[in-house]
């Protein structure tokens, strides 16, 4: 699957949400959004849930949130996440 990355860790609110929504609008079945954030982006996740997008959010041991969203229902987001290495 094609990854659309968004590292929002140093972005001020609401830039992460603005950029994430712009990417969401362009996703297809073969692509997914992979976002890094210092907080869990609740409005983005609520929006993904409302539009029935396949989504996953996890916090790692360093406090960084990993958010994956795709329209592809068969995508195993947990497995995709496990393959990620977090950039410093």
């Amino acid at each position: 699957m094609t990854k659309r990355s968004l590292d929002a860790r140093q972005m001020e609110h609401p830039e992460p949400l603005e950029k994430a929504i712009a990417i969401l609008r362009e996703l297809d079945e073969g692509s997914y959004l992979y976002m890094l954030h210092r907080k869990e982006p609740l409005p983005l996740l609520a929006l993904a849930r409302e539009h029935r997008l396949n989504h996953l959010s996890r916090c790692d041991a360093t406090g960084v949130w990993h958010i994956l969203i795709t329209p592809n229902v068969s995508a195993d987001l947990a497995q995709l996440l496990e393959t990620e290495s977090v950039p410093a």
Partner: protein
Amino acid sequence: MFQNSGLSLDQAPPISVVLRFFLAGSLWGIAAGTWLLLQGPSALNPAAPQGLILTHLLTLGVMLSFMLGALFQMLPVLAGIALKDPVTLAIRSQWPILFGTILLLSAFGSGSSTLYLLAVLLLGVGLLPVAWRMLRRLYLLRNHSASSRGMGFALYNLLLLVLLGFWMVALLGGWTFRGDLLALRQVHLGLGLLGWIALLIIAVSFQVIEMFYVTPPYPKPYARWLPSLVTGLLTLELVAALNLPALQPWFESLAAFLVGIHALLTLRRLSQRQRPLADATVWFWRVGMGALAAAMLLWIVGDFTTLSIAWSETLYTLYAAFALSVVFAMAYKIVPFLTWFHLNAQGYFNAPMMHEVIHPRYAMRHLSIHLTTLFTALFAAWTTPELWHLTGALLLFSFAWIALAIYRAWHRYLEVQTSGEKFEFPSMK
């Protein structure tokens, strides 16, 4: 390696819930400015009816409206609490509070016992159920953040504040003679200004300063314990007011000291931002926290000595500058964001960008108006009391400025909803 969040993803309330409170708060601000414009320096005497009216226009009118609106918005986001049927709850609290406040202001002016009684009834009907419902949901919350815990303590103080207000009204109305009105008044001030307004802002700041401005977080033990310490001290102040009046200023001063520390720490956090440029909201926060630190210093001095009229008016001005600065900072962040986000979530192609809802330059101009109002007020306190009339005119202008921004955002939202074209988010296949 990874853990689940455990946080609720419940959605924020409809935009109308938040904007109706913000707009009402702005209209109360216009009323406060008009009152100060008409009354001048006599509106600054806290013991006179004119002073009581101005204080309650700003606290019950402006601050309560903005803070209830912010609570409706922030509870789902910061605490994962979605209130059931928020529109009905908002309407059922807003209208009784509106009429209750009008009646209370009339009662201050006339001294009528009947008006006091009606005001208490309406304020009770408007405030107690909503505050209780929010507090109960927070109490039942399993995983607390520093913000949700702080919000709970602020709401507890609000309930105590309202009940104490009812007691004072009973004294003023002649239904009871139990309790020293002056001592209770001081506790009422402490609970309202430190325990409710300042503490709710502190609770929200634990999250939003870091989230909005990419600063280092507040120290965890500090954020965990500060709200309970302030609340504990204010509760002890109430006990002291009834039993050991000599201890009352000590408890209150300690609470003011902690609030002042938070102001200084927030200024420090804002100086640690990684972005060199600051928009109007950053400056509103800086002005607000600077004013709060200075106000708390004066508050502590005033607890042990009698402040001159000029210093009392300076304290009043600095505290108002703090509260209004933060209200404006939050409004300029929340209103464009909600307008943009709700329209995007509904899938409108022509949803305006945030800077098109309220342009950053518009907020910057408001900052100039706000600072002019602040300096005119300080000048009035120390040199020319007649300048309080001008301060009133500037305050009126300041609130008209933000009322217009909120109204335009609401109008734009409805306009896009009526005529906008929708896009489809990709859906699951």
